[in-house]
């Protein structure tokens, strides 16, 4: 059959109804032969960490500097700030109604690290007739071959780890469960090592892999359960729980040789040319509530006329989700030629915990005839203290475009 170019385009843009559940739903799978394109922009910022006692602390410990054989020069207090901007493109496909697969391609737009040292002068130094000022200290350090670490930015256009995922809604074919409003899925995702490691010669730099982002593991297992209150609350509330275990794999890293920072980064001399990190796995659970304050009109549009589906089954115009996640982080393990150096690194990555709050607003325009969902979310670790972890905040905005091909 002949089809014009415009028709083909229209064909591509035809949509099937999306079952009336929020896309952020923990147990959502796509209908058979449905594509979902999700493009989002994420901006994260980070300036604090939590120590072993659940207290907020700086990302980098303060450094006391002493004149060899003579008194305190001063104290360097870093107030480091780290930012990431990431463009995440996801494509999900419903193989069956209860089986979906997906691929996520995160592209780092840029990363920046700003150490922002402040200085508290120390003892009076008889050799120079004053206490060291900050400038004095960096002049002294430069004379020893160590420049002052500056701000760093990079990773422009670099890939993070590409994720592949599979979700199986094993309760889908159990009528009694489905009719009671319950659903449960098993999700497995795996990361391909397409991210990059940080430059070992830079004091302040960041990589783009899962370990660097510390947002999820490289092989993740999620078991989710939720209950939607279709009859009781007109399908305006869904409560869910998710249990997960996320594995990080051991990776090798190149040891710094001191080409740019000869005093601070020449560990290759004693730890070997390479070292490995086996990051601590994640495990934990989430609670989520999906709430629909406004469903919107339920009238026929060209979308529903084409598919023949009930407009009430389209996503509500406005909904939001609230999620709390607890993550337990296991001890991360360094292995090099120096057990002393290994311990110094591991000491900063003791078993810990994250308490994450996430909120997302969804605006779906399908009921209004537009195949588009716009969302915005905010994820924070700053409100509830954690342990031995970084306290980041992430703002994300995105669009979702469901599509179906006949």
């Amino acid at each position, binding site marked *: 059959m002949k089809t014009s170019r415009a028709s083909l385009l229209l064909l591509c843009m035809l949509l099937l109804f999306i079952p009336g559940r929020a896309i952020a739903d923990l147990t959502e799978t796509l209908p058979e032969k449905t594509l979902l394109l999700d493009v989002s922009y994420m901006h994260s910022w980070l300036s604090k960490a939590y120590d072993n006692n659940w207290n907020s602390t700086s990302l980098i410990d303060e450094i006391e500097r002493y004149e060899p054989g003579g008194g305190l020069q001063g104290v360097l207090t870093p107030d480091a700030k780290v930012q990431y901007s990431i463009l995440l493109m996801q494509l999900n496909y419903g193989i069956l109604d209860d089986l979906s697969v997906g691929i996520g391609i995160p592209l780092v737009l840029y990363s920046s690290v700003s150490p922002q040292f402040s200085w508290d002068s120390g003892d009076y130094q008889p050799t120079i*007739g004053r206490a060291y000022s900050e400038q004095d200290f960096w002049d002294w350090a430069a004379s020893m071959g160590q420049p002052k670490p500056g701000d760093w930015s990079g990773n422009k256009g670099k890939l993070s780890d590409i994720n592949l995922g599979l979700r199986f809604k094993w309760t889908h074919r159990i009528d009694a469960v489905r009719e009671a409003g319950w659903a449960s899925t098993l999700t497995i995702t795996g990361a391909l090592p397409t991210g990059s490691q940080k430059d070992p010669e830079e004091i302040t730099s960041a990589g783009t892999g899962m370990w660097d982002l510390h947002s999820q593991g490289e092989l993740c297992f999620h078991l989710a359960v939720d209950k939607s209150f279709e009859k009781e609350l007109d399908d305006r509330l869904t409560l869910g729980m998710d249990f997960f275990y996320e594995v990080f794999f051991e990776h090798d890293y190149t040891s710094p040789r001191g080409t740019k920072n000869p005093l601070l980064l020449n560990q290759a001399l*004693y730890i070997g040319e390479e070292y490995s990190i086996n990051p601590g796995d994640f*495990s934990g659970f989430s609670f989520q509530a999906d709430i629909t304050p406004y469903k919107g009109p339920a009238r026929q549009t060209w979308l529903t006329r084409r598919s023949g589906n009930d407009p009430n089954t389209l996503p509500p115009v406005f909904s939001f989700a609230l999620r709390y996640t607890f993550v337990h982080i*296991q001890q991360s393990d360094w292995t090099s030629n120096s057990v*002393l150096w290994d311990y110094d690194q591991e000491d900063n990555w003791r078993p810990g915990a994250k308490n994450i709050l996430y909120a997302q607003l969804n605006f779906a325009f399908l009921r209004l005839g537009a195949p588009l969902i716009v969302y915005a979310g905010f994820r924070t670790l700053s409100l509830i203290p954690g342990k031995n972890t970084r306290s980041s905040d992430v703002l994300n905005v995105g669009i979702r475009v469901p599509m179906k091909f006949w």
Partner: protein
Amino acid sequence: MNKQLIALLVLWCTAAVCFASCSETQQPDYAQVVVLEGSPYERGLQHGRLLESRIRSLYATLLPNSLLPYLNRERVDVASVLVNYKDAEENPESHYALWVEECLAGCIERCSEKCSFSYMLMKESGESMWDLIPQDYRDEMQGIADGAGMPLEEILIMNTFVDTMLAFRSLTVFIKQLQAPYVTELELIGGLDSDGIDNNSDGTTDENDGLLKPWNPTPNAAFVEVPTSASLRIGLNDIKLGMGTDKGDEAGVDPCTIRIQYNEAVYEYDDTCEADQARAQCVDSNGKPCPVKDDMCDDCLRTELIENSTRMNVFFNPPGEMEKAALASFIIQAGDFNRIIDPPPLHARFMRDERLTISTAGYGEEAMNIDNRGFDDGRSQPPSISFAVRGSATPDGETLAAHHYALLDSNTTHKHMVLFVIKPDDGALPHVVLGYAGLVWGFSGMNSSGLVFSFNNSDSLDNPMSGHFEEDLINAMLLCDGLPIGIAGREILAGRENVTEAAEYLKNVKRSFGWNVQLTDADGGLMAVETDTNILEDEDGGLLAYSPPGDGDNSKDEYGRAWASIKNDDLRMASHFRMNLEDLNHTFLIFDAKPQRYWTSFYYRSVRAWSILGEEIKKRYGDIDVERAIEILRTPELVDKRDSMQAVIYRPEKLLLHYALGTVPATDGEFIEFDLGATLAEEAQQ
């Protein structure tokens, strides 16, 4: 269905908890006990293999990461006197310039370390010491190198850098002091010539009693029974050597840099002021006398330039008069008009802090009975100390020898501590030393006969590097060609059984620097040995030894006082000479090399520590057992909180020791008992 779900959840949680209890990282032991036996090479091989990782990390974190870059900065001052160390820009044919050129031409990696001034210094000095090191220790070092997979050159540097560094440091400090202002005289003004008292202990009464000229640093009070209304006049001078970094700027003391600490209060000018045009006074932006940063000081500090000279008088009037029948202490410091930019930061030449202690009327003690202890200046750390007790000083007569060594930690040394048990196979005496991974020696040790050896550095210009300067003047090379003190210690422990034999050995080796060696044996022998290299071949042989009173010759000074004992059964040392007061007093070319007390930055803090140590021993006299000895070592005023390295108490009669390693300060850690006798007995049975 619900039950199945719940079961799954429970399983999941259980798994999570199991994984959650995966072991948390544990700090590795910073101190280890290592037994080495066999031939020297075999012992070295065992050493290198067992401690390979720590040898590498100690080398990397202490030398290229810390000490070597720090010493590189000193080249400029050294090159201002010694032409061999000028760089290619100043003289492309100098020894240093040619060495760097050759090194870089063949260098593949770590060139900034391997082709640096400080590495050259360490390497060449180590090589010159190599010839004096007995073959056994050369073999042992070779074994360590082979076992650890490191070049012998690096192991040699690790084993000789302490001696080299201290000798080098003494020279650079001395060169800097030559170019800085100095005290010419000191006078107390106000009734000292009419009070009927010999205030300055010169043997005459009321005749220039307030004058100390020339200036002579002393471990005791400089003036006694001083009227409380007296004030100070400090004579300062500054000259230009006309060479090196001292060129260009005019000589003169910068009045705005005058700083006087009187007891615990500091008097100095406001930072915004500058010297007036005549460079005689410190003035503010309106030309008025600069205010002093202390509300109590109402015109208490003023300066006066002596006409047509670079000499200056500084007048200090202690606010509110001095306390009656008390001790008063003054720390004096000043800088010049130099603006040194290399090494940074930008600074003038500053003289060493000079300390003076006096007693005021009614105190009632002679000067020689008052230590120049002063007050804590808030920044100086005490140096290494040692003491030994026996007989009546202890509750049960047991002999104890204690040592706390402090010099350089750099946040790394304490992580590499080792107690070595050395069991030679050639009939030499088995012994223990407290040292570090990679070193064939330790800062103290004890052998199976109960002979204990420990040393503290005691700065001296009477060292091999000065010796080369004496011979070759400005063409001298910086070579520390003496026997490293630690290896001398190993030789003593391997082959001597009592303090007399040990002292005899030390007398006959070429020493690498100034050292205070404390010797103790199982028969209660206590001996303090103060040594230098003896480059001028003095009659004393560069070695002076003394013991507690009653132990024979050399137990008392010219005043009949014990050199370093409270009573008859104790002895103590710090990091300055008590007996070897004129270690070197010689003019090299135009340079006046003076005895230790005139120039080393260790001097006053060592005098203070020695005085406090004596007081602590005295307080516990008759009760000093291990627990009390630990208390003494832990006295806060005796602990270097930043560079403390190791602390130990030896019990030679029982072949026991209690060591504290692996923390900074070392004394913060637990003192762990080690039984050398039982260890050797067990090994013998096997």
